[in-house]
């Protein structure tokens, strides 16, 4: 199950839904809001999602993981809206009989989610500048797309 959430994620509740006595391994990934990116001091983030497509693409990624790896269960959730430093932005949880499949599938899901979900991140910097990450029009990094404070 893949979901978007406008309210803070509850990892204990998310993981509890994966409990299963057939599972010997549970691997989780959490993406947290860092205080820096590309050397700039970040104050807060905004995530914006194109929800209908993010949800179908998220569900498709979880199904791909189930087909590729010997899993017992998997789920993932992505926050949208404004997030403060240290907040949980994305959660992925995978269970399997054995840990190899759980690690590989968890990694697969987050890698694909980052690359494919129509979810955008806007960083707010100290001083008021902002940038939509990866929307630069020249150079490789979000930094080139920075908009100075209005």
């Amino acid at each position, binding site marked *: 199950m893949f979901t978007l959430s406008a309210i803070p994620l509850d990892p204990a509740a998310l993981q509890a839904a994966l409990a299963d006595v057939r599972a010997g391994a549970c691997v989780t990934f959490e993406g947290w809001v860092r205080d820096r990116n590309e050397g700039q001091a970040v104050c807060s983030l905004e995530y914006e999602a194109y929800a209908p497509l993010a949800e179908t693409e998220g569900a498709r990624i979880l199904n791909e993981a189930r087909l590729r790896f010997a899993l017992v269960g998997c789920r993932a959730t992505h926050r949208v809206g404004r997030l403060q430093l240290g907040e949980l932005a994305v959660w992925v949880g995978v269970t399997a009989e054995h840990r190899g499949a759980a690690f590989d599938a968890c990694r697969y899901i987050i890698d694909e989610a980052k690359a494919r979900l129509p979810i955008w991140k*806007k960083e707010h910097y100290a001083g008021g500048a902002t940038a939509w990450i*990866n929307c630069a*029009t020249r150079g490789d990094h979000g930094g080139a797309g920075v908009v100075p404070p209005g």
Partner: protein
Amino acid sequence: MITLHVQYFAILREQRGLGEEKLATPAATPAALYEELRARHGFTLPGDRVRAAVNDVFVGSHTNLREGDRVVFIPPVAGG
């Protein structure tokens, strides 16, 4: 001319100044529509960095658009 419903997200929403609009266009494909809108609104993202979805499904940029389609242009995603 066909009438389409267009939605904008992230940097495109900010550069357009609104989240969605209905418009009439001679553009037959998402690629043509994006170039038209880019010229009109000064979008900074070149067309080859933007994907398209029609009616909530990813499509190729040369898919034919039809009357009433809902079109979304998808800037590069957060990644990282």
